[in-house]
C-alpha cells in the first residue's frame, strides 16, 4: 500500500521517511511501547527529556485528568544522558527509525555539555526543551525570553553537528520573536507546542491535585491553540516546523501539515490508543490517494485563505 506515495519530508538537516514522530515524554525510551508499536514504521522516536545527571522528578500525584486534557507534573524524571546512551540507545538503534533526543539543562553550559556529549552518540537529531513548565530551579523559563532562547540554541549548535530543533512553549506574548531568535542562532527548526501551564484543585481538601502544585496540560484540547501559533509563524517566515499538540488521528495531523508544519509529533494520544502514530501514517497515505496526490509535500503549507 502506498508504495507510489512519497511521505519523505525534510526539516533542515533532518530527513524523515514520514512526518509522524512520537513526542518526548509520552513514549518512554521507545522500548516500553515496542510491544505494541512497530518502531520501524515511525518517522522518528523522540525520547523522554534527558539531563546531564539522572533526575528524580516531582512528588506524586503527578497526573490529573481534565476534560479532553491531561495535566502532568512528572518533573522531567530521567535516567540521565549517560545511562541513556549506554542502556537505552542500543535497543532503539535496532530499528529503522530516526532517534531524536530531547534535552534540558539548568544553565546554558549544561545545554552545551549535553549537546557535546550526545554528538558522539549515534543519534539523528537534538530537540532542545526550553519550555518545560515543571522545572522550578530554572526560575524564569528559557523559552519565554528571546535572548535566553537564542543563547541556549547558539550554545547547543556550537557544540554539535546534529540537526537541532528547539521546542517552544505556547505561553508567550509573541511566538514569532522566539522563533526568529532561535533560527538566527542556528536551529534547524522549531517544534511546538509543549504543554500549557495548568493547575487543578481538590475542593474538599482545598489542596492542589498535583504534588508539584502546577503542571503542564496536554491532549486534544491543545490542538486549536497549537494550530494558531503555527499559523502565526507561517505567516511571517519560512521555517521548518514540527507540529505538536492534541493530535489523535490523521485528520488532526493533516490540519497541522496543511497549516505549514512539515512533521508532527504524537504525545498524549499514545496513552489513549498506542497505535495512534501508525494509524496516522496509514490515514495520511489513504488521504493522499483519495485526493489524487502523490507526495505529502504537496499538502504541507497549502492552507487557502
Amino acid at each position, binding site marked *: 500500500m502506498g508504495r507510489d506515495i512519497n511521505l519523505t519530508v525534510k526539516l533542515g538537516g533532518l530527513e524523515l521517511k514520514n512526518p509522524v514522530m512520537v513526542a518526548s515524554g509520552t513514549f*518512554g525510551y521507545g522500548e516500553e*511501547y515496542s510491544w505494541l508499536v512497530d518502531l520501524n514504521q515511525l518517522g522518528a522516536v523522540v525520547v523522554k527529556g534527558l539531563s546531564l545527571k539522572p533526575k528524580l522528578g516531582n512528588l506524586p*500525584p503527578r*497526573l490529573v485528568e481534565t476534560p479532553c*486534557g491531561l495535566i502532568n507534573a512528572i518533573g522531567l524524571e530521567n535516567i540521565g544522558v549517560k545511562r541513556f546512551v549506554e542502556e537505552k540507545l542500543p535497543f532503539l538503534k535496532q530499528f529503522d527509525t530516526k532517534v531524536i533526543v530531547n534535552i534540558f539543562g539548568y544553565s546554558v553550559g549544561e545545554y552545551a555539555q549535553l549537546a557535546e556529549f550526545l554528538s558522539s552518540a549515534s543519534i539523528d537529531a537534538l530537540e532542545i526543551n526550553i519550555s518545560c513548565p515543571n522545572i522550578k530551579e530554572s526560575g524564569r523559563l528559557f523559552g519565554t525570553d528571546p535572548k535566553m532562547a537564542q543563547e541556549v540554541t547558539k550554545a547547543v549548535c556550537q557544540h554539535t553537528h546534529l540537526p537541532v530543533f528547539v521546542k517552544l512553549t505556547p505561553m508567550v506574548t509573541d511566538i514569532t520573536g522566539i522563533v526568529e531568535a532561535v533560527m538566527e542562532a542556528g536551529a534547524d527548526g522549531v517544534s511546538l507546542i509543549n504543554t500549557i501551564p495548568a493547575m487543578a484543585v481538590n475542593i474538599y481538601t482545598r489542596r492542589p491535585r498535583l504534588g508539584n502544585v502546577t503542571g503542564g496540560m496536554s*491532549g486534544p484540547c491543545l490542538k486549536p491553540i497549537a494550530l494558531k501559533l503555527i499559523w502565526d509563524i507561517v505567516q511571517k517566515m519560512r521555517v521548518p516546523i514540527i507540529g505538536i499538540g492534541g493530535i489523535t488521528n490523521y485528520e488532526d495531523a493533516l490540519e497541522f501539515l496543511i497549516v505549514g508544519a512539515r512533521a508532527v509529533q504524537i504525545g498524549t494520544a499514545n496513552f489513549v490508543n*498506542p497505535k495512534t502514530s501508525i494509524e496516522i501514517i496509514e490515514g495520511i497515505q489513504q488521504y493522499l490517494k483519495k485526493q489524487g496526490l502523490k507526495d505529502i509535500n504537496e499538502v504541507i503549507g497549502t492552507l487557502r485563505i
Partner: protein
Amino acid sequence: MILEVATVVEHRHFVASKAESFHILKLRSPEIAVQAMPGQFVMLRVNELFDPLLRRPFSIFHTEKDCLYLFYKVVGKGTSLMSQWSQGREVSLLGPLGNGFGLPSKDVPWLVAGGAGIAPLFFLHHYLKHHGYRPKILWGLRYRISQELIDFLSKYLDNIVIYTEDGSLGYQGLVTEGVEKLYQITKPSKIYACGPIPMLKSVYDWLKNKDIPMEVSLEAQMACGIGACLGCIIKGKEGYKKVCCEGPVFDAREIKWDEI
C-alpha cells in the same frame, strides 16, 4: 502486553440499598485472558471520545477460558459510563499489565480486602486454591452488599469472613480488627492486601514487627499503564516506584507508608 478489542459477554449489577453498588463485567478477550495472572490489571477505554480522556485501570477479577471478569464500583465519570454497557459492546483493552502476586512459601495465606479491593484477591484466591493452598479471605465493606452478590461470590469463595462498618453484614467493625482477632487463633503464612490506603497502612502497622511476608496491591492515577509516562509513581524506600510496571503489587516493606 496486548491491545485487544474485547466484547461484553455479560454485565451484572449488584445494587445494594445503601450507597456502594458493584458491577461484574464479563469480557471476551481471548488473548489477554489466557495470559492473565493474579494481581495483574487491564486498562480499558471508556468510550471513543476524549472526555474522559484516559484509559481506566481495573484488576483482573477472574478468568474463564477466553473471558475475563472485572469487578468494579462506580466512583466517577468513567465507571458510571461503564455501568451502562450492555452485551455485545466492544471495548478496547490493554493488558495484562503489571507484575502480579508472588506465591506464598507455605500455607495458610490470608487475603485482606477492602471494598473493590476484593477484585485482584478474588483471582488470587482461585489461583492459590488451584495450587493446593487453603487461603482465607477477610473482606471489609462500608455497608452490606446485595444478597445476589453474596450468592455469586459464595459460589467461588469459601473461607471468607466479611466485616461491615455498620454491622449490617457479617461482623461489625473494620477488617483490620478481624485480622487481629483471627491472629489470636491462627497465624498466616503471608498476607496479601488490597484496599484503601488507610486500611493497608493499619494492616501493615500491625504486621511490621512480625515475621510475616506481606504483599499489597496499590493504586495510582495512570496514563500509559506500561511504564512510559512516569506518572504513576509512589514512594518506595529505595526511591520512586512505578505502580503500573514495578507494581501494582509491592512487598509492603518496600513502601514508605508514612509518606503516601
